[in-house]
């Protein structure tokens, strides 16, 4: 099963959140197909640089992540889907783009820290897991 990871997942993983680290270990064990949007990289660096994390360590983590899961770019189809999601669910622009890329890439399960994503699962055939 294709599993989508939102920016919050990577931030919490980097910070060593126990729940997320345990999830990561489980995903490794099952050798799950993990995907993320390239834009999550922007959020990852933006949030953690603002919190004073050293760029060198962030780069090492993210470069490794690029090999650990598939990073999907934004395309024309996902841009249109993002606009639709934004107007339907009142999400932020960046969140809509990331979510649209994950949905368009066929994810059936998405891990996020954004509780605003929860209502998506009612209309789309996707499980939205909100991280604590």
């Amino acid at each position, binding site marked *: 099963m294709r599993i989508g990871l939102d920016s919050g997942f990577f931030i919490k993983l980097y910070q*060593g959140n126990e729940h997320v680290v345990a999830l990561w270990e489980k995903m*490794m064990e099952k*050798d799950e197909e993990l995907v993320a949007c390239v834009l999550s990289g922007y959020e990852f660096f933006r949030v953690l640089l603002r919190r004073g994390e050293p760029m060198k360590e962030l780069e090492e*983590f993210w470069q*490794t992540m690029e*090999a*650990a*899961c598939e990073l999907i770019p934004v395309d024309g189809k996902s841009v249109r889907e993002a606009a639709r999601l934004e107007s339907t669910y009142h999400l932020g622009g960046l969140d809509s783009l990331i979510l649209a890329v994950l949905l368009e890439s066929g994810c059936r399960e998405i891990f996020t820290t954004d509780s605003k994503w929860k209502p998506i699962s009612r209309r789309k055939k996707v499980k939205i897991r909100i991280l604590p």
Partner: protein
Amino acid sequence: MKGRALTIYLDREVFSLLERKARGTGKSLSKVVQDALLDHLKDERRRLARQKILEIVRSRKKDRTLIEAWKEYERTERGKEREFRELFDEDRS
């Protein structure tokens, strides 16, 4: 596609499986071997990267524990030392 030639020796059993796969998919033997090798190398790279992520996270946790222990030491023991030194300095003056 431009590439480099490589001579490899396969067990008869592997070779016959390879031929069957090539016939079934309509691909050349080279293409079947190349695809299989590429998949294998990608899988290996992904698994190693995932393991490395875990190592990075664990080593950061160790660093954080050390930093917190040092801060706690600064707050308690070093604080006591400072108080003692201040008292000592007062007595001397």
